């Protein structure tokens, strides 16, 4: 099955059972994110069941799943937006989220949005630096309402990066962008990931996006990690045969079995309804 290996995920240290070396960063002894036996339920329905997950420092992990698979719940838990017992979920203190919608405060100029919650001297020049990195150095004093969708999402990326996160959580941040902008954002995210080396968890429903960006792709199904795919293809990644092979396997795990990629893609789009249950 070279160059990747697909296997059902067992409990307990995933990385220990992983024979494939990681592309980014050496296998570290202390993972950046560590989830052990975490279950989250709303009323009678459990959204995440006995979840185990390690993310190494500097590792780029994509989380695929249909609506209601629990992927947003997992991201929110790691972001600290939903409560979790400390012995089951541990994350770095420095973490930042980029949401699907940019969530810029419309009443704050772009640089103030980027510097939101930061104190101290020179926050403007720090914000200027972060905005320069995402190519928005010229929109420092703009109001968010005047930004295009792509610009707003880049500002949101700058707002996350300025905190120098050890864990960057991306909640379908490119889903609302047009195809060309999305490709540019992919390049930008990879560039920033290389420069700052945070662990990244990207939640997405886009199989191609997951394979293009991540070191490792997880498929979440009914609150459990149903499959894991380590992607060792060199970046930048083209949709070559190896890519397609990974894609087919992932689609299979998502319940899309058609051999026709176009039909499969169309079916995947039907997954889209965006809001995961909480």
């Amino acid at each position, binding site marked *: 099955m070279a160059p990747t290996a697909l296997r059902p995920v067992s409990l307990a240290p995933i990385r220990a059972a992983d024979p494939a070396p990681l592309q980014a960063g050496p296998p570290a002894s202390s993972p950046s994110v560590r989830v052990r036996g975490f279950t989250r339920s709303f009323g009678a329905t459990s959204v995440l069941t006995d979840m185990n997950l390690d993310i190494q420092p500097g590792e780029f992990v994509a989380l695929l799943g249909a609506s209601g698979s629990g992927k947003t719940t997992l991201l929110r838990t790691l*972001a*600290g*937006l939903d409560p979790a017992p400390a012995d089951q979920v541990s994350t770095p203190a420095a973490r*930042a*989220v980029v*949401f699907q*919608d940019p*969530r810029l*405060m*419309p*009443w*704050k*100029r772009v640089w103030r949005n980027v510097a*939101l*919650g930061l104190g101290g001297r020179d926050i403007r020049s720090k914000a200027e630096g972060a905005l320069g990195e995402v190519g928005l150095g010229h929109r420092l004093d703009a*109001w*968010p*309402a*005047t*930004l*295009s969708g792509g610009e707003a999402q880049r500002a949101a990326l700058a*707002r996350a990066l300025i*905190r120098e996160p050890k864990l960057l959580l991306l909640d379908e941040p490119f889903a609302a962008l047009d195809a060309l902008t999305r490709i540019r954002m992919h390049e930008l995210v990879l560039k920033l990931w290389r420069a700052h080396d945070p662990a990244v968890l990207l939640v997405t429903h886009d199989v191609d996006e997951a394979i293009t960006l991540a070191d490792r792709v997880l498929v979440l199904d009914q609150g459990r990690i149903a499959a894991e795919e380590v992607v060792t293809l060199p970046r930048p990644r083209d949709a070559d045969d190896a890519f397609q092979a990974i894609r087919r396997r992932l689609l299979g795990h998502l319940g899309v079995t058609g051999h026709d990629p176009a039909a499969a893609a169309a079916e995947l789009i039907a997954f889209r309804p965006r809001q995961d249950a909480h």
Partner: protein
Amino acid sequence: MSLAYDDRLTDKPKLGAKLGPKVKARFSRPKLADQRWLSPVLLLALWEVASLTGVIPSRILAAPSAVVRTLAHLVVNGDLPNALVVSLARMAVGLAIGVTTGTVLALAAGLSKLGETLVDPPLQIIRPLPTLALTPLFIVWLGIGETPKIALISLGVTFPIYLNLFNAIRSVDPRLMEAGRSFGLKGWDLIVNIVLPGAMPGFLVGLRYALSVSLLILVVAEQINASAGLGYLINNARDFMQTDVIVVCLLVYALLGLGADLLVRALERRLLVWRPAFLKA
């Protein structure tokens, strides 16, 4: 962004350029249908003529020319400026108290569940009561001086401020709140950075209502046994059937309403500069 707006700006000449010469000629001729000043001026002229010919006796309604003369006279002898200062002061003090009260109550109810439980029910109970209906009670309690007038304005102003601000605080976009929390904002920082600016548009809507309510209550309240102010001028004029003075005072009230509106607009332009509507203008 601004491109779309620029396009719209240049739309009109382009449109004209495409049309034939005949149509263009029709556009350039001043059209009767566009002359909005015409009917008011005609009515005014009609009124003046009717007054001059005695169709409208001056004890019923003074002629426009008489009103202008009286206005000049009242300004020069100081009666009108003095009355205006008194009335404006009533309105301003009443507004200040009412806006403060409404804001404090809305913050208490909006920012905490306990606050809502304590503050909201009594206010909702009093709310349906027309404020002016309390006039007799306020006179019994507070006499006939300045106090009941200011108290009535304050009470009337409290409600639009409270209702709009409370509602605005509760409707601040929860996704923005969540984003703020995810970047480590808590408590007071969250309120200052997200809740209050997010509620500002609603507060200004409340303020707009508050200003018109305050003017309405002022007009009624200051005719209660007033010894100064526009209401006093009107009361005296009524006793002597000086319709010119009454019309002058009505004009001043109208100007007060206009001024209040301009004030809120200026505030909105300043405080809501981030809104798309203002960014384009």
